[in-house]
């Protein structure tokens, strides 16, 4: 590994994940190129990368989403690989394709696989073929109101109508009876068409108090697949995760084993490679139903790193370089202890309005069992143009109770001045008796407001 699997890697991202990728590259001895918008000129990724190239103004469309600028930066710096991080271009099949045509390795799945996973209804059909449990629903896109009513009657109410290309709640409707279906289908189709330029809508069983469970996948380019256990991500607000943990406090071992095994087969059959996450809903009985594949590294990947001891970003790079999973993992995967991540956002903890600005005082917590991933520094600015993530705080302990105690302690010692953060909200979550009992679903935060 002295010379590293790549000569030089460009990081097509910003913020904490850009710094995270720089760390992985440093650990592998690979020089890095940071690209940045004018708003991020004084950011830590720019400081700590070996080279830094300004690619455009603050607006993402003209910098972090601008494919020609990023490819051009890659060409003038002679990198042989690009890590896309999460968000931005990370699940853009076209970008992955342009990288390939430019002779630059895209650190992620093949463009065709990204494209296939990007169409939810197609991903769902593929998973179903390989025995991954799927919510009862329509066979793909609904072609008529009659088909919708018929399918809903067969499944039983309530059902949910969803945009095939959807996300963020748009193009979604819950129907409680056959009478409502045609009307809501039309609404969902209109909304989907406006938001995603595709009016395709499908239908599935609606779970009232779902939990969000996702499985971390690693797959090499030689057909080896490892399922690294799950993360429980049910603590959300408006579909934005606030806190994630591994293992889930409620997932039954036999469900974990069964789903992992079908996933392993499906991922291999699809030809999926690199890191990825498979999202499931859990119903009130503890059964899992496939939702979608996130064909990238996730924000919350550190909780899996904490319980497995595997550096997932390093693994991504080595996979992209053609190494095999047995080489990378060096033995069977052992999960130990419990890990929790809090996403500390720059936002008012009461109103949830964003709170960008200059950090005038900062104390990062450390100590036993605590990891901090952040691009924040005292006197640095959280710009208003991008997401509001300030830091990821990860606590690991021998069990859930030790992880919770350590997280509470770290939140106590975490001081951010000059901007509002979600720290008070996170303290409230950690102190909630239902949270401590593991008794929650995705509506947990909603019930407070």
């Amino acid at each position, binding site marked *: 590994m002295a010379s590293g699997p790549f000569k*030089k890697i460009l990081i097509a991202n910003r913020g904490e994940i850009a710094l995270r990728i720089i760390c992985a590259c440093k650990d592998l001895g690979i*020089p890095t190129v940071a690209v*940045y918008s*004018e708003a991020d*000129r*004084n950011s*830590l990724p*720019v*400081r*700590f*990368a*070996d*080279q*830094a*190239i*300004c*690619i*455009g*103004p603050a607006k993402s469309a003209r*910098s972090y989403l601008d494919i*020609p*600028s990023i*490819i*051009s*930066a890659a*060409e*003038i*710096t*002679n990198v042989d690989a690009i890590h896309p991080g999460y968000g931005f271009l990370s699940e853009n099949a076209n970008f992955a394709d342009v990288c390939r045509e*430019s002779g630059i390795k895209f650190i992620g799945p093949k463009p065709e696989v990204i494209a296939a996973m990007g169409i939810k209804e197609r991903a769902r059909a593929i998973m179903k073929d390989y025995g991954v449990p799927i919510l009862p629903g329509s066979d793909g896109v609904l072609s008529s109101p009659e088909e919708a009513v018929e399918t809903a009657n067969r499944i039983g109410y309530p059902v949910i109508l969803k945009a095939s290309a959807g996300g963020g709640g748009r193009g979604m409707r819950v129907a409680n009876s056959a009478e409502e279906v045609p009307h809501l289908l039309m609404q969902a189709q209109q909304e989907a068409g406006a938001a995603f330029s595709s009016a395709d809508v499908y239908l599935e069983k609606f779970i009232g108090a779902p939990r969000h469970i996702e499985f971390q996948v690693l797959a090499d380019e030689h057909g080896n697949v490892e399922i690294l256990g799950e993360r429980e991500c049910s603590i959300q607000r408006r579909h934005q995760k606030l806190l994630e943990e591994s293992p889930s406090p409620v997932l039954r071992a036999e469900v974990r084993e069964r789903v992992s095994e079908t996933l392993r087969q499906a991922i291999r059959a699809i030809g999926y490679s690199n890191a990825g996450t498979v999202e499931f809903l859990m119903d009130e009985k503890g059964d899992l139903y496939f939702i979608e594949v996130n064909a990238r590294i996730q924000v919350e990947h550190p909780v899996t790193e904490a319980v497995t001891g595997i550096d997932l970003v390093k693994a991504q790079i080595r996979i992209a370089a053609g190494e095999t999973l047995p080489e990378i993992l060096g033995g069977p995967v052992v999960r130990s202890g419990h890990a929790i991540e809090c996403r500390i956002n720059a936002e008012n903890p009461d109103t949830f309005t964003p709170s960008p600005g*200059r950090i005038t005082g900062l104390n990062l917590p450390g100590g036993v069992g605590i990891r901090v991933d952040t691009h924040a*520094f*005292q*006197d*640095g*600015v959280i710009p208003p143009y991008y997401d509001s993530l300030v830091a990821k705080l990860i606590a690991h302990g021998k069990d859930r109770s030790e992880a919770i105690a350590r997280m509470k302690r770290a939140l106590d010692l975490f001081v951010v001045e000059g901007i509002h953060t979600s720290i008070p909200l996170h303290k409230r979550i950690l102190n909630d008796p239902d949270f401590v009992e593991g008794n929650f679903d995705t509506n947990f935060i909603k019930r407070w407001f």
Partner: protein
Amino acid sequence: MTLDEIRELIQLASETGIAELEVQRGENRVRIRKSFGASGGGETNVYLPNAAPSPVQSVPQAPPPTISAPPKAEAPAAKTPDSLIYVKSPIVGTFYEAASPSNPPFVRIGEHVSLGKVLCIIESMKLMNEIETDVAGIVETKLVQNGQPVEYGEALFGIRPV
């Protein structure tokens, strides 16, 4: 030293991206320290390597690990005190001063250019982008070498308007 003078000094310090300013006039002394290096509104501490015109890019050393490192390779402000106007690169790419190695440069130092005159080419993803001047005047400085990579917003030519 009046308050207005001090205010001006602070503004000066802020604009110029320095970390610390100390002024003494006879018995009067003012010292201004900027709040933290890596922050600041406009100053930069990053760089693009000034590569030789060879196709192989040399890997420069990382800057010293001080957060308040002085600005490096800063793109000059659009308008500097000497009233030169800088034409900046609108894209990331490779700078070429001529249409081909056998052609003469588009412009030479001292030459008068009128609005819309092509100054250079920036190659980006195999596309040759002609960069035109948006100011008429005398070309006084050329800030990059032929074949050199340039980043977004990097100053290419300094032109004195006439």
